[in-house]
């Protein structure tokens, strides 16, 4: 079974003095994931809204 490699949570966040590099890497990665998932969801909402307006125009 893999064991937790750090003595404490504080040491985990400190990453042996490399906190800056490790956490900014994971941060950039998280931002990229968020952007690629949120962007299409917002875009879809906009498309549906535009099409709704078009349908309503055509039916009235």
């Amino acid at each position: 079974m893999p064991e937790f490699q750090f003595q404490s949570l504080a040491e985990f966040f400190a990453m042996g003095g490399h906190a800056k590099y490790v956490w900014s890497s994971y941060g950039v990665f998280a931002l990229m994931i968020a952007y690629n998932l949120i962007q299409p969801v917002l875009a879809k909402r906009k498309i549906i809204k535009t099409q709704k307006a078009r349908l309503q125009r055509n039916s009235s």
Partner: protein
Amino acid sequence: MWQWFLQLGSPRLFYSMTDRYLPWLTWFTVILLGTGLAWGLAFTPPDYQMGENYRIAYIHVPMATLAMGCYAMMASFSAGYLIWKIKVADMIAKACAPIGASITAVALATGSLWGIPTWGTWWIWDARLTSTLIMLFLYVGIIALRSAFDSIDSGARACAVLSLVGVVNLPIIKYSVDWWNTLHQGASNLSLSDTAANPPEVWIPAFFVGFGILGFFLIALILRTRNEILIRERRSQWVSDLVANNMKESGDA
């Protein structure tokens, strides 16, 4: 199998089929990525030379691999579009570009962040880094090229050709570390031995992260492709029905 593949070529069937797959794909991704990242960040032993800094590799390596995989995929679908005129193939190729660009950017950024303490520099014009930067420019160029056309078909053809030309860059990236004397290290060997430089306890979590990231990539790709389908098929009956249903659900019909 063939039948299933052909169905994905129809925009409408692609839309309804991915409706069914997306929840499964999401669970697969969340579980693999969650396990892999936690494991790699906290439960693998530190590297004897790089200390904790090597944990960046758990995202840098899959990002760089996927950046190339995404390019190969975009070029394959571009070829599919040019040869068989499959419209969905072009929509998938179009969706690949922005995702690939952002993944390549993260591969470069995490590489730089790793390089500052390890190499003492965030950038060097070494063959691996330079060819990867060229791939980023190719992605951005393909996005720009498409937006320069008013006609969907002309834009699709131009982008397909540029994507295919850019494929020459892929073997250059892959073999740059062997062909030239680069600062960037070569590919690591995977070994089952506990005494190897990369024992299983180090690379098994990397596989979890890798497949999790692949799942995320497919989700992002499917979401973008579905949006493109909605836009291009907006005048068809099934999209109107879908929008009408959506109106009923949100209660403003």
